[in-house]
């Protein structure tokens, strides 16, 4: 579309300065097509869409602050004696990595601030990726056509944890060293190849002198490159699919309702970057994070009580704590055929995380198989309108939280003055029954909320105004909703169970029967959205003869 001026056509002359610049660039590199496509592209707006933005922005801040840190950090594990300005550690033997981390904190101007910005944004990065995924799950945004983007998001979650963990270990302080010690123990529990992996990773016996340099390379090159690649894929697919939108009047699977990218959406999103940066700066300025100078250099002998990993590793650490090593007199660690099967480490380290990520990655396909719903969805579900999915999500969330809480079992015990053993026993019980309780309670709450929606849609909103009728009866006046608000409450799908259907050969196979059973389980408890007939009946029932607004001024439908 670039303006290649033919001899007879007069050259295009833009009237404004902005227009001339656009034209200058376009005549040389093109791109007006892209601008035309995206300059006014409509983006739906909702506060919950912000989590993904927070993730993106904290990653940008991680790159900026991390680059600064690399200028001063030295990932060597060579022994040195500390000669920096932090008195308590003067002349203490330590690795160069730890010493340079101390120098960043105490001798590089603004270094401590940068370290804290980096660590806080790392915590925020994993947190915002996680919350973003919860939002996507509970609103059903992973459904067709976005299944692959959901998988990319899951990979990003794993990568963000990998980035966090490799970075956490770099200062080579006592706390992170013990974290590596635990990783080494977990790796050694892997059958057959565990010892080999441990020796290869650490370049020999733990701790060796290689691991910090290797983690550094992973942390500053490989993992961020993969994250960047995944982010590009993620955003590319967002552009291809266009953003999902919450249900509401005027919104359907065939349109996008929102604000144009330029100027208003771009301004809000761009401005939000600075807000995220500002909030992280505030945290970095006022809340100490990872005070490595208090921990001292890594030494295999000491350890401080109340040690905690960074929050996102907590669920694995908690699972390790919950697993009993002996049950009665029976050792969970078994020796079979002369080899050690360290189930007391292997099971908690691999199984819960394995289950969580397997379900996470496959869930879109599981739900699609159960519901046989192969349509494209661009309008989100309100979580209450998909009670079983919401309940599954909460069950998984509670399961995760039980393990996460277990990583702080000692702190729970000391803060609340209860027995550590009791805390562990309770959490072990909750590990199994917590998700079940969460499932049942969540489903009931979702159904109750749906019924409340029905009630409000049919009978209006409670005004709190009590009126006494001539014959003495007191009633509370209900104000009818306007049609837009009502549509938000009634404009959803409530699928009913889908019985087994014969396949192409006319046979109902056992897989299909299983699917039908799951469909029954998925949809049997359902609250149907209120219908106009019900609304009319409700009004008639009350003997009120108000005009039913919904009948009037109908707008065009896009169905």
């Amino acid at each position, binding site marked *: 579309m670039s303006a290649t001026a033919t001899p007879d056509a007069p050259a295009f002359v833009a009237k404004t300065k902005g227009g001339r610049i656009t034209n200058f660039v376009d005549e040389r590199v093109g791109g007006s097509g892209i601008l035309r496509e995206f300059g006014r592209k409509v983006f739906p707006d909702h506060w919950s869409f912000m989590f993904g933005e927070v993730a993106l922005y904290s990653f940008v801040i991680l790159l900026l602050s991390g680059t600064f840190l690399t200028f001063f950090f030295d990932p060597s594990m060579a022994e040195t004696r500390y000669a920096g300005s932090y008195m308590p550690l003067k002349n203490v033997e330590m690795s160069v990595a730890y010493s340079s981390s101390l120098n960043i904190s105490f001798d590089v101007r603004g270094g401590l601030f940068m370290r804290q910005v980096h660590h806080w944004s790392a915590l925020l990065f994993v947190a915002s990726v996680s919350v973003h995924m919860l939002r996507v799950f509970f609103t059903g945004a992973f459904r067709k056509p976005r299944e692959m983007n959901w998988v990319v998001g899951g990979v990003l979650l794993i990568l963000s944890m990998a980035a966090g963990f490799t970075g956490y270990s770099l200062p080579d302080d006592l706390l992170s060293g013990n974290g590596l010690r635990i990783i080494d*123990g977990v790796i050694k529990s892997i059958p057959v190849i565990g010892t080999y992996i441990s*020796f290869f990773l650490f370049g020999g016996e733990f*701790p060796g002198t290689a691991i910090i340099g290797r983690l550094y390379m992973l942390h500053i090159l490989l993992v961020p490159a993969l994250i960047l690649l995944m982010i590009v894929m993620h955003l590319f697919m967002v552009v291809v699919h*266009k953003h999902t939108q919450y249900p509401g009047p005027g919104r359907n*699977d065939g349109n996008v309702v929102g604000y144009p990218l330029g100027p208003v959406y771009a301004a809000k999103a761009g401005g939000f970057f*600075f807000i995220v940066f500002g909030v992280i700066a505030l945290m970095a300025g006022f809340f100490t994070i990872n005070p490595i100078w208090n921990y001292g250099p890594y030494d295999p002998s000491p350890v401080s*009580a109340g040690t905690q990993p960074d929050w996102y590793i907590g669920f694995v650490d908690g699972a390790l704590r919950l697993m009993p090593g002996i049950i009665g007199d029976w050792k969970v660690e078994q020796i079979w055929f002369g080899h050690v099967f360290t189930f007391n480490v292997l099971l*908690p380290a691999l199984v819960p995380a394995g289950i969580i990520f397997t379900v996470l990655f496959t869930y879109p396909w599981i739900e699609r198989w159960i519901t046989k719903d192969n349509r494209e969805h661009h309008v989100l579900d309100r979580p209450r309108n998909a009670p079983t999915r919401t309940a599954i999500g909460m069950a998984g969330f509670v399961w995760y939280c039980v393990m996460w809480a277990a990583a702080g079992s000692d702190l729970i015990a000391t803060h609340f003055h209860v027995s550590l053993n009791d805390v562990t026993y309770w959490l072990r019980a909750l590990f199994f029954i917590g998700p079940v309780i969460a499932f049942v309670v969540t489903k009931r709450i979702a159904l109750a909320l749906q019924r409340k929606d029905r009630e409000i849609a049919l009978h209006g909103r409670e005004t709190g105004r009590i009126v006494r009728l001539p014959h003495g009866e007191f009633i509370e006046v209900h104000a009818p909703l306007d049609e837009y608000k009502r549509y938000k409450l009634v404009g959803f799908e409530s699928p009913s169970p889908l019985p087994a259907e014969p396949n192409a050969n006319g046979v109902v196979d056992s897989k299909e029967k299983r699917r039908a059973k799951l469909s029954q389980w998925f949809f049997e408890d359902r609250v149907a959205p209120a219908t*106009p007939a019900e609304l009319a009946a409700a009004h008639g029932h009350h003997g009120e003869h108000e005009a039913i607004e919904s009948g009037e001024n109908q707008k065009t439908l896009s169905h």
Partner: protein
Amino acid sequence: MGNHSDGSPNHSGTVATAGQNEVEKFQDPGIPPHRLRLADTDPKAAKRAERQVALLFGSSVVGTLIFLVAYFAIDLGDDTSIATIRLQNALLGIGTAFAMLGIGTGIVHWAKALMPDHEVSEERHAIRTEEDRLAAVRIVDDIVEETGIKRRPLIRNTLLGAVALAPLPALAVFGDLGPRPDNTLAHTMWAPQDGKLKRLTRDPDGTPIKASDVTIGSAFHVIPEGLNELHEGKLNEKAKAVVLLMRLNPESLNPSPGRENWGYNGIVAYSKICTHVGCPVALYEQQTHHLLCPCHQSTFDLTQECKVIFGPASRPLPQLPIAVDSEGYLVATSDFNEPVGPSYWERDEHERNRNA
């Protein structure tokens, strides 16, 4: 769950497909009418919003200045106190926060109060056209056909074989990331060297411990004699050799057959490396004679030869056999008779070899 709580009056129980129930649905009333903001109708309000935005941008300038002042006015030297660093850190934080939040909130306020806030609707287009899809499928088929890979299985199979084997060199290269595991995991510095028994010395200074220094109820963190003098691999050795030394009333100890002489006068030494995943079992509960690992709370009972009584560890802590030398110092009579620390695949084999 037989109680179907379907509120619809004409729930048919039939198959619900794309269109869902056949009952009549509410019609979509369309996008709600646009509501004007105060700044849209009142020029005064618009002017006020404009000033607010400018003020926010101004506060960002102030933040930048705070940062620069804090950066240059506070110099870090060798004698800088922690309080000064803390102050500088806080000021840098405030400065950056103002600089960033000023810009961010300013832009957002500008967008929300002054830029057009009409919600607009845009059509979604199909991700791809049916025509494109058919063409793409045909192209893929053509490409596969032209390679002839289906007709020439010999080519296909040899290629698959070659590709499957090609990564082996890469694996081999990574195989030299570290030495192959050998039985070093099963040995520690406690093994007597040239017939000389190793003394138990204090962690970290390495001074030897006299049996008479160990009073009942006391506990020592112990490293082997000579550890501090190592030039290489000091941490590796320390990670295996650290020991906890405690003295109990001899009656509280219940040594099993063969271990009666492993302690001295109620003094016993146990590996400090947890048999779970290797954290130091650093907490000694004097009253109950329990050892607790702070990482995952494995608890070992000293009176039962450090048997696991709680937590995720499965094996007791290995005991170090000790005695007293002619000068009254505590010495290890031999190495541990089993590998210390977390379990690993070859551990049982190593243990059997040790005791063979």
